[in-house]
C-alpha cells in the first residue's frame, strides 16, 4: 500500500524570468507531520500558493493519492482535501466567524442561495469544537484578537475534513507567529489530534517548534530543496546552518555587542503608571543605550503599556518623564515630537503606509533630515533612501516601489528605517519587532538594535520569545495581570534563564 498522500515532483515556477521554485520535490506520508523551513524568498510561499491553487506551476506535477492533479482554483485544492491556514490572515473581518469558516462552501448552510443561519452556526460550532475553541460562531472576526483569528483559520482549514473523500492534508503556514503560551499548546495538541486522521505540512520560522512537532523536516534555500532530515537526526543548530548557509553561533543575538549602560543618564522615567483595566503602578527607568525588555503573556498588560508610552492610548494616573521633564503624551504626534518612536506588531496595519513607496515610508515620521524648509529635497531624499535600503538590506526593486509589494520582513525593515532615520529619536518602543521574520532577517534586526543602543537610544522591547527578551535586554520586567511581578538584571554575563521569567508570568 502506498503511504504517500501528497507528492510534489520537480516543481518549477518562474516570475518574469526570476526562478522562485527550481525543481522542488517532496512528499507527505499518511498521518505525518512534515516541517518546511527556509528563509524569506526560499520559495515556501510560492510552493504553498501552488498547493492551494492560487498559482499554476510552470513545470513538474502534483500527485494526490498517487493520482496527478491540477489545482486551477482554491476550490479545486479544497475539494481535494487540502486545507490551508494562511500566514497572512485570510479572514474577512467584516463578517462573522461562521461565514468565514465556510466562505464560498456553505454546503447545507445555504439552500437555494438563502442562508440558514442556525444550520451554518451549528456547522461552524462543530469545527470550533474540534479545536476546543470558545469563540462564538456568530462573533464578528473584527472583534477577535489576532490569536483568536488564528484559531478561526485553523477551524476553517479543518472544514475540508468533511468535504473531501480522502483524509485531509492541512497546511499550516507560520501558524505560531502570533500565538503565545497556552494558545501555542492548544495548537500543538490539535496537531497531535489531527495527525490521527490527517497529514500536516507545518511551515514555521521557529526551528525549535518545527523540530518538536515534525517527523521530517525539509529545508528550502533559494528556490531549491537543500536537505531532508528526520527529527531524531538533527538539531536546531544544524537546521539553522542548512537554512542560512552559515554557522549558527551564540553571535545570533549579538550578545557580545551589548554594552554596559551603567552611569548613562536616565532618558525615560516611568513612575506609578496605571491604566484602568489594563495595568497598575508600573515604574522603571530607561537609560541611554539600554534595552528594557517586558515579558508577559497575552493580557498581562504589556501591549497596553507600550501603546501608552507612545501616546496612542491615554493613561489614568502616574507620570512619564523624558530627560526629567513630565510628558502629557496625549497623542502619537506628541510622542514623535519629543523623540519617542514605535514599531508595532502588526506592521500591515499600523506600521507601513501601503500604497506609498519605500522612500516615502522611510521619511514619513520625520522628513526633517531630507527637507529644505517646507520642501522635500528630492535628491537628498533619494540618496538617503538608497542608503537605508542598502544598509538594512531591504529587498526591493528600488526605492520607489510600493511597500505593499514587499515581503513581510522587508516591510518591517522599512518601518525600522522610518524611525532610525529620525535624528530626533531618543526612545524606541519595539512591539514584537521580529514577528514573522525569518532567521536572517531577525539577525539584521538584532544587529540594528545593538547599533541603536551604541548611539545612546533607549529601547523598550516586547519580544517574540523569552530567549529574545533575555538576550537583547539589559533589564527585564515580568508582568502578569497588569502588575510587574519580577525584575531581572540581564547585563552581559548575568542573564537569567527562561524558566526564571516564566515563574512570574503564569
Amino acid at each position, binding site marked *: 500500500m502506498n503511504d504517500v498522500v501528497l507528492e510534489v515532483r520537480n516543481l518549477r515556477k518562474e516570475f518574469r524570468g526570476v526562478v522562485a521554485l527550481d525543481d522542488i520535490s517532496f512528499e507527505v506520508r499518511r498521518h505525518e507531520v512534515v516541517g518546511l523551513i527556509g528563509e524569506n524568498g526560499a520559495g515556501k510561499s510560492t510552493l504553498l500558493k501552488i498547493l492551494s491553487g*492560487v498559482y499554476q506551476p510552470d513545470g513538474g506535477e502534483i500527485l494526490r493519492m498517487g493520482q496527478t492533479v491540477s489545482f486551477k482554483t482554491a476550490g479545486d485544492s*479544497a475539494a481535494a482535501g487540502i486545507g490551508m491556514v494562511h500566514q497572512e490572515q485570510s479572514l*474577512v473581518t467584516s463578517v462573522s466567524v461562521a461565514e468565514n469558516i465556510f466562505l464560498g*462552501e456553505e454546503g447545507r448552510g*445555504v439552500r437555494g442561495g438563502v*442562508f440558514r443561519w442556525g444550520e451554518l452556526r451549528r456547522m461552524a460550532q462543530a469545527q470550533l469544537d474540534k479545536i476546543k475553541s470558545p469563540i462564538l460562531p*456568530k*462573533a464578528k472576526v473584527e472583534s477577535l484578537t489576532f490569536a483568536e483569528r488564528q484559531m478561526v483559520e485553523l477551524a476553517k482549514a479543518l472544514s475540508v475534513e468533511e468535504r473531501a473523500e480522502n483524509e485531509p492534508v492541512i497546511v499550516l503556514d507560520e501558524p505560531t507567529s502570533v500565538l503565545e503560551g497556552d494558545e501555542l499548546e492548544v495548537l500543538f495538541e490539535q496537531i497531535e489530534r489531527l495527525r490521527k486522521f490527517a497529514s500536516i505540512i507545518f511551515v514555521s520560522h521557529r526551528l525549535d517548534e518545527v523540530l518538536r512537532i515534525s517527523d521530517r523536516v525539509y529545508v528550502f534555500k533559494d528556490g531549491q530543496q537543500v536537505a531532508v532530515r528526520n527529527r531524531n537526526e538533527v538539531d536546531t543548530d544544524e537546521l539553522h546552518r542548512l537554512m542560512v548557509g552559515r554557522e549558527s553561533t551564540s553571535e545570533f543575538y549579538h550578545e557580545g555587542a551589548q554594552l554596559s549602560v551603567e552611569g548613562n543618564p536616565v532618558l525615560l522615567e516611568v513612575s506609578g503608571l496605571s491604566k484602568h*483595566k489594563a495595568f497598575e503602578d508600573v515604574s522603571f527607568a530607561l537609560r541611554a543605550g539600554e534595552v528594557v525588555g517586558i515579558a508577559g503573556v497575552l493580557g498581562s498588560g504589556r501591549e497596553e503599556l507600550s501603546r501608552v508610552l507612545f501616546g496612542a492610548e491615554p493613561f489614568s494616573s502616574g507620570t512619564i518623564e523624558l530627560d526629567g521633564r513630565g510628558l502629557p503624551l496625549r497623542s502619537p504626534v506628541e510622542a514623535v515630537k519629543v523623540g519617542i518612536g514605535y514599531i508595532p506588531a502588526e506592521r500591515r*496595519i499600523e506600521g507601513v503606509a501601503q500604497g506609498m513607496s519605500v522612500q516615502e515610508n522611510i521619511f514619513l515620521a520625520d522628513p526633517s533630515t531630507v527637507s529644505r524648509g517646507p520642501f522635500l529635497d528630492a535628491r537628498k531624499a533619494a540618496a538617503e533612501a538608497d542608503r537605508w535600503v542598502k544598509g538594512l538590506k531591504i529587498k526591493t526593486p528600488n526605492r520607489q516601489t510600493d511597500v505593499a509589494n514587499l515581503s513581510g520582513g522587508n516591510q518591517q525593515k522599512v518601518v525600522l528605517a522610518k524611525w532610525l532615520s529620525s535624528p530626533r529619536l531618543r526612545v524606541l518602543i519595539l512591539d514584537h519587532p521580529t514577528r514573522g521574520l525569518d532567521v536572517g532577517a531577525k539577525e539584521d534586526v538584532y544587529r540594528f538594535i545593538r547599533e541603536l543602543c551604541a548611539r545612546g537610544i533607549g529601547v523598550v522591547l516586547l519580544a517574540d520569545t523569552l530567549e529574545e527578551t533575555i538576550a537583547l535586554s539589559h533589564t527585564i520586567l515580568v508582568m502578569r495581570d497588569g502588575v510587574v511581578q519580577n525584575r531581572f538584571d540581564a547585563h552581559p554575563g548575568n542573564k537569567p534563564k527562561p524558566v526564571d521569567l516564566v515563574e512570574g508570568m503564569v
Partner: protein
Amino acid sequence: MSRSDLVSSAPGVDLRKIQRLFGTGGPLVALVVLVAFFSLASSTFFTLGNGSSLLTQLSILLVVAIGLTFVIILGSLDLSIEGVMASSSLVFVLLAANDRNDSDLGFLAVIAGVLTGSLFGLLNGVLHVHLKIPSFMVTLGTGAIGIGIATVLFGGRAPRLMDDSLRDLGFGSLGGIPKLAIIAVIVLTIALLVQRFTRVGRYGYAIGGDEQVMKLSGVNINRYKVLSFVLTGTASGIAGVMAALQLGVGDVTIGGGYLFTAITAVVLGGTALVGGIGGVGRTLVGAAIITVLANGLILIGVNPYVQVAVQGLVIVLAVAVTGWSLRKRVRAIK
C-alpha cells in the same frame, strides 16, 4: 479587556439586534434628537398631516439609498442613479396610459420601468467587472447614457401619466399611510432579507471587507458584484417609477438631486464608503435624518438662505457622532 468580553456577546441581546440593524447608536441618537427638537420647536411637526408628508418625502429617497447601499458595501459606487431614474420614469410613463401615444400596459409598464433600472444595473456591473473599469467611471458614463435615452424619449415635453389607478399609487394613501411609503416599506423589507439571508447580500460584506480573501476562497466574486449592481439599478428603477407616479410625468430631471442625497443618507447611516461595514437598516436612519431635517427646518422657519448651511452643519455633526462610535472598531486591535 478580558478575552471573554471580546468573544462572547454581552447580555441585552435586543439592544445588539437593534444595533446590528440600525447601526451603532450615533445616527439613531441623532435622529431621535432631531425628532425631539423639531417636535418641541414646531407645533406642526408631530401632526398627522406632516407625518404623512414626511413619509412621502422619505419614500423615494429611501428606495434609492437602499439600492445604493448594496454597491457601497462592496466598496464601489453607483453614480448613474439620476440617469437611471430618468430613463425608467420615461419608459414607464410611455408604456402606461399617457398623453403621447396609445400605449396602455398598466402594471406591465411598471415592470418595464423597473426592469429598465435592472438593466442599467446589469450594464454597470458587467462593464465594471469585465472591463475592470472603476465603478464610479462606469456609472458616470452609464448615467449620462441614461439621461441621453431619457432625453430622446422625452421628446421636448414631459409625457403625462394618464392611468388613474396608477396615479393613485402616487398620491393616494391607505389608512392614512401614503401608498408610496407602503411601497418603500416593502422594498426595505425585501432588501433587509436579501442582505441578511442571501449569498449576494452576505458576500457583498465579505467582498467589501476583503476581496482578496474571497478570491482565495474560490468564490466567483464577479458574479456577486454584478448582482449587487443589478440590485442597485433595480432600486433606482423602482424609484424612477415611484417619482413618475408621484409627479404624474416622466421627466429627464426626475432624479435630480437624488444621487447626492442618497450617498449622504447611506454614509450618514453608518455604511462606510470603503466597504464591508453597514447595511440597509442603517440607511433607513440616514435617509430619515435627511428628510426630517429638510422638513423641520422649513417648519421652524429657518431662512431659506441659511437652510443649506444648517443642513450641512447638522450632517457634519451627525457624522462626527457616528465616527466617534466607529473609532474603536476602525482602529486596529491591540
